[in-house]
């Protein structure tokens, strides 16, 4: 491979750093109406009366929207394929407000100041209702968060709004309860994970205008432009053919931009006023009024023989979806489906639970969704079991973890929102990842702890993880290659580059197939008018799904080129040999170059536009695997933690671009460490999210990590493009459990609630003594 598996600089890094127009707000029309949203001060209330007369009269105000002025059609903002596995429980604006920060009304005015002033002129009379703020008390609470009758599920997901249940799920392989009773050893623990914030650097941003055909054209900072187009069309009753969504560069998404945020309001304002408009979330709105990760309570029981052979895993989860049910079921299921198959040799498994509504900021998709929560619980419990059995936690994993050519019944039972797909692990280098990581971290020398004096203890901890590569039979991607004169290509793809570098790696795949260089592949992506379809950037799908589409388009282009060359050389297509530059045939003395052939095709003879399209959907979802190892130094007096090193050894098949793949892993690791160690969404007693800026919600800075050590296992997944699996999410999964395990190894206390702060460790230490 000449281009793939090579470290090629990202194709747009320079232009971005030079400040060229790139992001959504850079493309807003200069005279855009500014949209601002009046947001609820109450966690739960009904709007009894809303008076916008004064706001409407204010000079410079073009439009004021309340729930009286918008179409009433339930939808979900989740940004998934259709039909969605999320309940249709959201309206553009509603008479009920369900969390502090929920939309009450919207104003469009000629500038920021006028819009702000208009918001202040809106008078609202609320009937304040008792909010549901504790997710453990949400089921059957006397307050029903969604009492409206016109909301519904698209297919059975356990949607029971009358008891505040957004979804529920139950699966069982044999009788886990019965098997647990026969085990030599059973360990049980309950874990809590928090509502992590995405905290991408670019706020949610969208702007709109009407084009010369009077069509609605949106620039949106989104991970799912095609879903955005469909959902706007459905919720606002606008023909889908009248909408164009363009995704320019996106300043980070991490799942937060899979869903829709300002798209509905911006579309309505521009359709009603016929003027361009824009909405840029303030950072406070990003924190309070977009999404968080689903907080969960996870109860795990694991039973084994006294020799350490796992026999049963029983897992019950209560998940908090907040005010709306985006991804309620799917995140919940992934907490099982991307964790439990790692221990595929058990006799019995049960995985079940409920997803409840609360009057808090809605939870949505977030990198590694479900998996990171489930991983923290299961991988912590595996260590608890190892300590009880007095077996090294690595050995216990090695005895029980999934290996190449094996399978798990869970793959067939559990998908995302639906049934799953049976599959074998054609590539699984987890054994190598564990062994290599063990060496890189120096496990044998450092496990469990080394006292380095001055009350400082160094310890190590580890966890293993798996993800997927897209959702089988659901996620699809398509790519079109166009040959141009002089022999360079356009690659248009629906795939959505949100900073992970997919434009670059998809260009690499195209260049590899066409035996050319990346500079000959001009990429344009994510424009619903101009590029082929793609479900979007989520579920670790782009490298595998969209990458396969590019590969197929490339093969078709080679065929088309050979045919055109055979006409030019007057030989059979089968006799043509092409090296990326020149076509030769043993039956012809005169070779023809790609440049000559292209010019012939467009200017001289047998004129024809060569364009090929490949599309792909997965029939399986080959999991990337990794082993993560942490080394910490902890102060035994204050419990302050310094993270000295994080070793990641990853099997993602072929890394199409090793440096960019490393960036995906390391970016995931540091987000996972943020969640593991200090990131904490906090609410006031009245339900207001109070960690709503970067002073109160700390994300990792350049000072927080000493060292990241990242390596890839040699691995080739035959079903992937050039052997690739996906790599976008796997990095985030292991840090919470690895850190919890390292803290236990250092001080003998088990922290079961994220984040693992010095305060919690200190309190537990003193509780213990």
């Amino acid at each position, binding site marked *: 491979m000449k281009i793939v598996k090579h470290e090629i600089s990202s194709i*747009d*890094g320079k232009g971005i750093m*030079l400040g060229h127009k*790139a992001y959504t707000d850079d493309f807003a029309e200069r005279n855009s109406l500014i949209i601002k949203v009046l947001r609820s001060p109450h966690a739960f209330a009904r709007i009894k009366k809303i008076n916008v007369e004064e706001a409407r009269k204010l000079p410079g105000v073009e439009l004021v929207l309340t729930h009286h002025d918008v179409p009433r059609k339930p939808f979900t903002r989740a940004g998934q394929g259709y039909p969605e596995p999320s309940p249709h429980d959201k309206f553009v604006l509603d008479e009920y407000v369900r969390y502090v920060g929920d939309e009450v009304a919207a104003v469009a005015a000629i500038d920021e100041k006028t819009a702000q002033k208009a918001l202040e002129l809106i008078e609202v009379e609320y009937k304040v209702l008792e909010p549901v703020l504790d997710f453990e008390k949400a089921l059957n609470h006397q307050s029903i968060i969604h009492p409206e009758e016109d909301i519904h599920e698209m297919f059975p997901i356990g949607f029971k709004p009358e008891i505040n249940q957004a979804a529920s799920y139950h699966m069982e392989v044999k009788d886990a309860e019965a098997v647990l009773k026969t085990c030599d050893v059973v360990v049980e623990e309950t874990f809590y994970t928090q509502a992590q914030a995405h905290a991408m*650097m670019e706020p949610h941003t969208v702007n709109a205008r009407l084009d010369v055909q009077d069509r609605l054209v949106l620039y949106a900072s989104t991970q799912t432009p095609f879903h955005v187009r469909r959902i706007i069309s459905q919720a606002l009753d606008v023909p889908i053919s009248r909408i164009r969504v363009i995704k320019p560069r996106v300043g980070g998404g991490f799942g937060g931009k899979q869903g829709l945020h300002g798209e509905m309001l911006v579309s309505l304002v521009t359709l009603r006023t016929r003027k361009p408009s824009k909405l840029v979330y303030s950072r406070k709105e990003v924190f309070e009024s977009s999404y968080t990760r689903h907080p969960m309570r996870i109860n795990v029981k694991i039973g084994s023989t006294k020799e350490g052979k796992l026999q049963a895993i029983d897992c019950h989860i209560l998940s908090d979806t907040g005010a709306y049910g985006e991804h309620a079921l799917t995140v919940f299921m992934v907490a099982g489906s991307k964790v439990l198959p790692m221990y595929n040799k058990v006799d019995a498994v049960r995985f079940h639970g409920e997803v409840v509504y609360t009057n808090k900021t809605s939870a949505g998709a977030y990198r590694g969704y479900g998996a990171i929560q489930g991983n923290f619980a299961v991988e912590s419990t595996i260590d608890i079991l190892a300590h009880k059995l007095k077996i090294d936690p690595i050995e216990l994993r090695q005895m029980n973890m999934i290996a190449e050519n094996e399978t798990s019944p869970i793959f067939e039972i559990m998908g995302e929102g639906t049934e799953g797909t049976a599959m074998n692990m054609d590539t699984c280098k987890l054994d190598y990842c564990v062994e290599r990581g063990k060496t890189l971290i120096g496990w044998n020398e450092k496990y469990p702890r080394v006292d380095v004096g001055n009350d400082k203890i160094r310890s190590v901890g580890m966890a293993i993880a798996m993800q997927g590569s897209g959702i089988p039979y659901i996620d699809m991607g398509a790519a079109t290659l166009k040959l141009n004169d002089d022999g360079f290509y356009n690659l248009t793809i629906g795939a959505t580059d949100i900073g992970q570098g997919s434009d670059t790696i998809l260009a690499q795949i195209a260049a590899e197939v066409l035996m050319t260089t990346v500079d000959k592949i001009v990429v344009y992506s994510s424009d619903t008018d101009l590029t082929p379809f793609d479900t979007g950037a989520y579920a670790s799908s782009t490298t595998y799904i969209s990458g396969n589409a590019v590969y197929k388009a490339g093969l078709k282009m080679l065929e088309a080129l050979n045919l055109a060359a055979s006409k030019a050389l007057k030989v059979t297509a089968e006799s043509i040999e092409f090296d990326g530059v020149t076509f030769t045939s043993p039956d012809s003395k005169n070779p023809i170059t790609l440049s000559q052939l292209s010019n012939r095709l467009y200017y001289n003879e047998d004129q024809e536009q060569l364009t090929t399209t490949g599309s792909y959907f997965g029939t399986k979802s080959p999991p990337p695997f990794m082993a993560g190892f942490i080394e910490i130094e902890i102060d035994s007096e204050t419990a302050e933690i310094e993270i000295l090193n994080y070793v990641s050894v990853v099997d993602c098949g072929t890394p199409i*671009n*090793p440096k960019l793949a490393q*960036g995906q892993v390391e970016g995931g690791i540091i987000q996972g460490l943020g969640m593991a160690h200090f990131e904490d969404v906090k609410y006031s007693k009245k339900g207001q999210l109070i960690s709503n800026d970067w002073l109160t919600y700390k994300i990792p800075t350049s000072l927080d990590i000493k060292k990241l050590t990242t390596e890839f296992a040699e691995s080739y997944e035959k079903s992937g493009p050039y052997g690739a699996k996906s790599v976008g999410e796997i990095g985030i999964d292991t840090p919470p459990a690895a850190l919890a395990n390292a803290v236990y190894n250092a001080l003998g206390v088990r922290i079961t609630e994220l984040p693992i702060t010095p305060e919690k460790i200190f309190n537990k230490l003193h509780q213990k003594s």
Partner: protein
Amino acid sequence: MIVNFILNRQPKRYDVDFDETLLETLRKDDVTSVKKGCDASSCGTCTVLIDGKPILACSELTVRVAGKNVITVEGIREEVEKISHYFGLEGADQCGFCNPAMALTIYSLKQSLKNPSSDDIKKYLVGNLCRCSGYQAQFKAIKRYLGDPL
């Protein structure tokens, strides 16, 4: 009110409100390299150099910049291309929203510290948040840039 200052070596004249920030003024003038990432002077994406020092444009009133020298990445193109070159080699580019600001801070670091240690570099960059990269690839790129003669 009218404010005059030097932007990227060109004299500029702006008619601004008294409470307008430099960030607003620059973005209205299509200086798209300067980004708005937060409202609390804490993310660093709006960094510009004022008389050579990295300053957050979101917390600087435009009227206070009168007569000063303001530099954005557009004004130090050659240096930014070098920084970008090393970012590319190290795979440090991800979403890029923080990158122009990061480039200005890195350029300023090179101007103001001689032979900085790794800790010096990390401390200098602590005000430039990045949610994508894990910072490590950026440090490698910065070290290579610092070794590149000015």
